[in-house]
């Protein structure tokens, strides 16, 4: 139960800056997700909060109090490590019980047994209590590590990719369990993942980290509908968003946006038009999500774009349909059983309502339709 804050934290390892002037505020009882590619600095943030790493600049605060110099043991945080960090020489039971046997957080054995078995049942590993870590699968080890983290009542749960090594079915199950547990425990949780679906489904708020800096901080909806730049836009959504060159035509009969060497430009909503005109530029990048592109094997309207089928990749309950338009590949979705010949003709129509426009040089978001509706209070 705590409000966690990082203020202007910078942490370097040798020459490399792992965290570059990071400021985050995590509210009490919030489920906060750190999301980003490998090496971005997510684990370093967790370790800084835990006290395992000391930043050379900046403050870590718990409930407003500066805890930089407080030893990790004293901070009362609980952490799941990405590679489990189980004690190899003791059983699963002893591993999970270990936090409650330490001098700082000691409880009596009856209480311990009760808690451990409860958590073990939750993790579905109650039959493994007498085993040593070496004799368990990766998924089982990960659940023991999770158990060890959840068995206490700390100020904050720190979880570093706790579901990464579980098979898909188990992962889905655990995700739901985790969210429910967290609501019951009423404990602040900071959760690291590189799976965007996990981030969207679990997080009250998400922080996208890249190269030691925060790209964007906000709710899942904000990330998805109003990404602050192309990098964030690409992280969310499957298949990946299509980002292509777009030419803004200010005046005349062809007013609107031209893409993919099409002669006719596409009409755009008025608020978008005004924003693009205000920049004074004509070259932009346009972001079109796969679901905003629909296909047909016959030309429906004169706005349809003509291309060839490049490939179809079934992914479970849908398929990614890749269309080659003048050597640019557009990604859209189709039913998983769609069959079409390679290089056969296909026509794509574009829904401009959800299109996002990015500055061609800085890659930052310029505007999207109805932008204000999606942006909530930041931080």
């Amino acid at each position, binding site marked *: 139960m705590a409000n966690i804050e990082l203020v202007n934290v910078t942490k370097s390892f040798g020459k490399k800056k792992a965290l570059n002037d990071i400021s985050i505020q995590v509210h009490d009882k919030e489920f906060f997700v750190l999301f980003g590619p490998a090496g971005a600095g997510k684990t370093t943030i967790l370790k800084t909060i835990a006290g*395992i790493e000391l930043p050379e600049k900046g403050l870590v605060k718990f409930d407003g109090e500066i805890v930089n110099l407080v030893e*990790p*043991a004293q901070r009362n945080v609980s952490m799941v490590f990405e590679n489990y*960090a*189980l*004690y190899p*020489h003791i059983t699963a039971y002893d591993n999970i019980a270990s*936090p409650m046997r330490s*001098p700082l957080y000691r409880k009596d054995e009856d209480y311990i047994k009760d808690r451990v078995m409860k958590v073990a049942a939750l993790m579905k590993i109650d039959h493994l209590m007498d085993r040593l870590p070496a004799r368990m699968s990766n998924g089982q080890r990960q659940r023991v590590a999770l158990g*060890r983290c959840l068995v206490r009542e700390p100020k904050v749960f720190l979880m570093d990719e706790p579901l990464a090594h579980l098979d898909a079915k188990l992962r889905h199950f655990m995700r739901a369990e985790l969210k429910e547990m967290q609501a019951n425990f009423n404990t602040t949780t900071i959760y690291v993942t590189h799976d965007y679906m996990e981030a969207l489904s679990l997080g009250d708020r998400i922080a996208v980290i890249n190269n030691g800096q925060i790209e964007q901080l906000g709710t899942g909806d904000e990330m998805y509908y109003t990404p602050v730049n192309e990098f964030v836009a690409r992280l969310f959504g499957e298949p990946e968003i299509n980002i292509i060159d777009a030419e803004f035509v200010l005046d005349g009969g062809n007013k609107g946006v031209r893409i993919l060497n099409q002669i006719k430009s596409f009409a755009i909503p008025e608020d978008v038009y005004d924003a693009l005109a205000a920049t004074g530029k004509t070259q932009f990048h346009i972001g079109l999500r796969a679901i905003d592109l629909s296909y047909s094997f016959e030309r429906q309207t004169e706005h349809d774009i003509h291309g060839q089928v490049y490939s179809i990749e079934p992914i479970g309950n849908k398929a990614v349909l890749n269309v080659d338009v003048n050597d640019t590949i557009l990604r859209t979705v189709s039913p998983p059983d769609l069959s079409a010949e390679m290089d056969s003709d296909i026509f794509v129509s574009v829904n401009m309502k959800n299109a996002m426009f990015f500055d061609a040089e800085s890659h930052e978001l310029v505007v999207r339709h109805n932008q204000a509706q999606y942006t909530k209070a930041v931080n």
Partner: protein
Amino acid sequence: MFSENQSLLSRLIQNLLLIIYSIFALFPLFWMALITFKSDLQMFNTTFFFTPTLENYKAVLIGTDYIKTFIDNVIVSGGAVLVSVLAGVPAAYALARFNFKYKEDLAFTILSFKFAPEILVILPLFMIYQKLHLYDTYLGLIWVYQLITMPLLIWVVRGYFEDISVEVEQAAELDGYPWYSVFWKILLPLIKPGLVASALLAFIFAWNSFTFSLQLSGFNIQTVTVASLRYIASDTVHYGQMAVAATIAALPEVILALLIQKHLVRGLSFGAVKG
């Protein structure tokens, strides 16, 4: 590296070569143990078949102070290993975990002690020891022997510490254990097998040391290696007794060697090679 279908001939030759080397390596030990049971009379005219006797053993064990020599060896070697373990394990931990200035320089300095020529050490030490009254004392020898045992222990145990992922220690910290509990309850149990094996290997090397005890001990303390020199130097024709001296000196190490099989390579290469 070997294909399964090597010709029978080539396999025979390989085995033959191995047998030749095995005889070369092991026969001397076997023969030496054998003649400990041979009386002096039968030494000249018999080879393998003779009537065994224990008179050689009696002569050496009861007739001389070889037993005391043996015990001296145990005290000095064991003491040296003990000191090295007590001071070396923490040092190994510091080298494995902490990052501080001159860390690698320090580590290599410790390693270089092993390569220091023994002669380099004993001649000046001889004088200083006399001044400090350390000549011919257990303490003096135990201290010198550190040059043999300490580098081995520090470097090998360092490797074992490095094998344990840091995060296991960090997890223990977060669980609420102070740093000495982490060391005692978690790290030590994990390195115990390796530590024991390294200690035994260090013991063997200390046991075998000759140069140090030759010069830095005289009358009160004699190690087995120096004492056996007596037998070599003398014109005695008590070959059986010589063999007894050698066998008794060699036996403990052979037994210990069998115990540390698994960790042998790491120990011999000072952690450079993980067997």
